[in-house]
């Protein structure tokens, strides 16, 4: 089995983001960026499948500016075999690139790979922590006509080509069987705890192969704007309203009154 893992370069989860004065988006200048935590979970799962000998190659792919080499390097240090870097300066946080465009680019990467040996499984994070769309993996599966399971909390390899996947839902977990590969699986929080990339592996990752290709070259003559122009226009980005101070109530009756009549959370 050969696995492809898209890895997104996003604002680090610990950063307190600021909105640009023109409200066009979040200020990314001098902001710490990291590998999207859910993509990290996907990488970890792919590497574990390789360690269990269920997979023979793991390819990571990232879309973005030249700094994506760091994102790919982290994924390679965790155990991916090689990387693909789709070079573009467009922002990936929904203001410029959106899931439909991103899925189209990933589909192109898969087509290129299938001309060699083909990919059997795409493992994505369930969502990125900047756009929070949770759509790219599902759109990609739709475009390819591949089976998909989202919000995976556990993946078991049954026999060649069959995967048993536990899926998180709001009312509990359900188990689905993928009978035939290739397929797309998106990974949720409970799936695994990603390993730390060790320093020796971070250094060795420099020697692993990364193919760099521009968006224009990848789309081979197609109209880049037609493919990548967002379908939705971001009108403005604003900070959430500041949290209001809480109040104290004198007794339980007053509490119930507030919950029922003001907050309307109980009947």
């Amino acid at each position: 089995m050969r696995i492809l893992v898209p890895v997104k370069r996003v604002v680090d989860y610990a950063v307190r983001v600021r909105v640009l004065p023109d409200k066009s988006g979040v200020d990314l200048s001098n902001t710490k960026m990291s590998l999207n935590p859910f993509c990290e979970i996907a990488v970890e799962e792919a590497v574990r499948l390789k360690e269990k000998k269920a997979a023979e190659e793991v390819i990571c792919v990232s879309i973005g500016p030249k700094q994506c080499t760091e994102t790919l390097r982290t994924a390679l240090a965790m155990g991916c075999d090689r990387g693909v870097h789709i070079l573009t300066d467009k922002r990936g946080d929904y203001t410029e690139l959106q899931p439909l465009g991103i899925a189209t680019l990933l589909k192109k990467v898969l087509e290129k790979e299938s001309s060699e040996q083909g990919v059997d499984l795409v493992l994505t994070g369930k969502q990125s922590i900047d756009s929070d769309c949770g759509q790219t993996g599902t759109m990609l599966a739709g475009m390819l006509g591949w089976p998909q399971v989202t919000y995976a909390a556990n993946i078991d390899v049954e026999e060649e080509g069959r995967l048993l996947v536990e899926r998180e839902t709001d009312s509990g977990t359900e188990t689905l069987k993928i009978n035939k590969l290739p397929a797309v699986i998106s990974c949720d929080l409970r799936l695994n705890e990603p390993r730390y990339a060790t320093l020796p592996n971070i250094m060795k990752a420099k020697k692993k192969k990364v193919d760099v290709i521009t968006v224009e070259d990848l789309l081979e003559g197609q109209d880049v704007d037609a493919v990548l122009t967002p379908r939705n226009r971001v009108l403005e980005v604003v900070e959430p309203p500041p949290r209001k101070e809480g109040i104290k109530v004198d007794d339980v009756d007053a509490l119930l009154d507030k919950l029922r009549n003001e907050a309307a959370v109980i009947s």
Partner: protein
Amino acid sequence: SSEHEPYLHQQHSPVTKFSEDEEMARDAVRSWANEELRPVVRQMDEEAKHRPEILNGLFECGFMGMEIPEQYGGSGLNFTSACLAVEELARVDPSVAILVDIHNTLTNNAIRFWGSPTLQQKWLPRLSTDTISSFALSEAGSGSDAFALQTRAEISSDGSYYTINGSKLWISNSNEAGVFLLFANVNPENGYKGITAFMVDANTEGVMIGPPENKLGLRASSTCPITFENVKVDASDILGEVGMGYKYCINILNEGRIGIAAQQLGIAKGCLDASMPYLLERKQFGTPIGEFQGMEHQYAQIATEIHAVEVMTYNACRMKEAGNIPFVKEASMCKLYASQVAERAASKTIEWLGGIGFTKDLLVEKFYRDVKVGSIYEGTSNIQLQTIAKIMREEYR
């Protein structure tokens, strides 16, 4: 000397701008320290002991073989990366930082510089993967006057081994160490020119580690007396040449003090990390206390001094990495100043936090206790001043 091209930017970029490798190393240490180490710092201080999973984590992540070449299981990075790792660890727990600092900047580097290929092959793989080391120099009668050491190494009649007798005191990491880089004199009649460096396996018969000192700070770091009673060490475990130990010692400590500066810098930054958010949140008289001018002046002053220490420390790193630039004065200066600034920062931080800073509810009281040894170990402040003065006199002669 380092295998790496020294990172000398052609366009004179700031010394506080690091290469991609160095940034990735720093980030890796910072993540691990915040996620794995921070939750257990208080416990380790209270129990006055390192936790095994922390020690294992240091090895697994590659923090114990920062500059050791890949072929020996190391991380293959440079001195600046090692200092960045020490700084990031100190920002969370100075006790763990000192263990990593001594191991990397003293033992590992001494072996890389002066060890025979056989010695390197024997020890470097162990030092990068599972064996903690200690630097066994100081004795009851010899601290600053290091070369007055009395531990004796007598050569056997056939010259194949040495028998070591003596005691060391104040040895960091000694409870956890699997090996000691020990300084003993093979020829006391020659004075310091008999001092020889030996790699002594901690399991050797006759090596006795005493109970750890009950210290004010750096409590998780074991500081023990060690007695050597007829300890037999193979001649092949001598580091470099007989009688050259004093020279190796001076040289390695010269650079080691840059590592200490990095540790002190980490402590100072850790103090700001702990206090600045509080200053923005805590209100008195309707105003966040961080906005009172009296407070502004204090934290701006401390931040300025921390910045100076940072620049001095990483500049000293680059001077050392260049390989042909003398840096002894600058290394002494950065250790001296870093320990002074860190002490001021720790003390001020407790004041800024008010009553709660004075309790064990926060970790700032721990920084205050941990920082004090900075002006004492690896060359007291007086020794640093003396070193600087001596070089200055030569410059003006």
